[in-house]
């Protein structure tokens, strides 16, 4: 009886510890604002050729132009308005379906519509 309880407790302890450790071991340091800003520009520019956003994004050297427009080319760049959390929440839209070109185009269009304030940082018209 007591041995069965011991075994069950041991299993529970193992499970809980493994879960916590997996969670903890997945969390690393925060990425700087400049890197986030450049990542958003790169993701947005993957859809530059889509008809849904035609004419609203630069046709060539898109990412470099957007980064230059936003001014986040330097490592000490920091988000002010909109704030970092706002940019991150808009970035989630662009992280959808990275392998599907059609869905990517739709995500870019959604981004420009829903996150006009963020798009304005990159000099992209709503």
């Amino acid at each position: 009886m007591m041995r069965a309880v011991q075994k069950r407790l041991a299993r529970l302890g193992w499970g809980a510890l493994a879960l916590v450790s997996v969670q903890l071991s997945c969390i690393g340091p925060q990425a700087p604002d400049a890197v986030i800003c450049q990542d958003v520009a790169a993701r947005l520019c993957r859809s530059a050729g889509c008809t849904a956003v035609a004419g609203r994004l630069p046709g060539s050297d898109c990412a470099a132009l957007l980064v230059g427009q936003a001014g986040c080319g330097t490592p000490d760049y920091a988000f002010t308005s909109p704030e970092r959390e706002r940019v991150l929440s808009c970035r989630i839209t662009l992280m959808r379906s990275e392998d599907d070109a059609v869905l990517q185009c739709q995500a870019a269009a959604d981004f420009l519509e829903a996150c006009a304030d963020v798009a304005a940082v990159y000099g992209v018209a709503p």
Partner: protein
Amino acid sequence: MKRFAAFATAFVFLVGCGGIARETRVERGPLLRHFSREQTVGLAGAQLRVEPGWPEAKFFFTREKQCRHEEVDEYAETRTTVRRAPGGGPALAAGVSQILAGLGLFLARGLFSDVPDTTRIDEGGRYPATARTQATIWSYVVMALGLPATVVGAVQLGQQGESSERMTAEVVTQARESVCETVPFSGALVVAAKGKPPVELNVTNGTIVAPVTSWVDVPLERWTLGGEAVHVVPTERAKLDALRACMRVIPAPAPETVVALAEAGRQLLAQAVDACVAAVPSAPVDETRQRLSGEPPSGSLTPAASFAEALAQFAPEITMTDASRLFDAETLRGKRIHVRSAVVQRHDSGHFLTQVGVQPVWLLTKPSAERTAIAPGQRVEVLATGAGLYASQGVSAPLLEVHRARLAP
């Protein structure tokens, strides 16, 4: 915090002591002494003793005490308890190994890179954990997993050992039990027959002299004296059964009832007569015997006698007329009775419901010319014997077994 610490300590000892096997060895030493002792135990309930008689019997109730005499040997005894924890060593080894492995990983964490993979940023804007962070966390995990096993193993190993206790032990070598004290048991004797109101009799000084009526026939399990059960030894039960046999044969069953009995029934009745007489030699069973043998009963009337002659021959003990007092069935039972009554109802079974003054009386008649002539509204005069209580058509009244009847002049 204190509560948590107390709980944790209790938990550790509970879990740690779970795997401990205890083995107790008893070694008997030399005989210290030999002695005798007496124990007295009061037995529950009342014991019944019966002194049969008719129409009254004596019942004695006693409370018994049982004495137990014991011969006892007292020995010295050593009780040794050995506690083993077969899982303690392996648990401790496993726990320590895990802690050492975790410690090693922790100490070696500097060997892992502390640079995150910058090509991946999660939804929260964070890089994945560095290899050093992962190694550090896992070292904590491995150490944490080893800690309980280490504690449990240590506790179990700490509990191992042997303890001895010296004491004395008694061995009863011989025991005798006997009833050593009997005292009269007085109180209210309650006999509760099923479906009837209980009969309550007062037992004084452990004795009661009571008429042998229907309460005697109630099973002993339904008797209580002072709220306690009544017990009886087999010899006394036989006497009680003999009284019950007397109740079946006194007064004598109606002749037509005896005639209607099968041979087996007649034999049972004869056995009841014998049992009754064996216990109560003076029991009036002659009439029953005569009816069983087919002879006319001594109290019966010859067919040739006129009613006046029959009345003289019958010598009634009780005369019931409209002016008489009320009689209960038990008072009339077995008595020779002269009755004048008004017929109220007539039944094919030979039963007549009659009225003596305000008292209803059942008459049981034999087939005869006189019976044929009797009809409701008439007055009759009968010579009869009381036969107990009879209930029919919602009327419960004394039953009289008619020997002779005529329309009242």
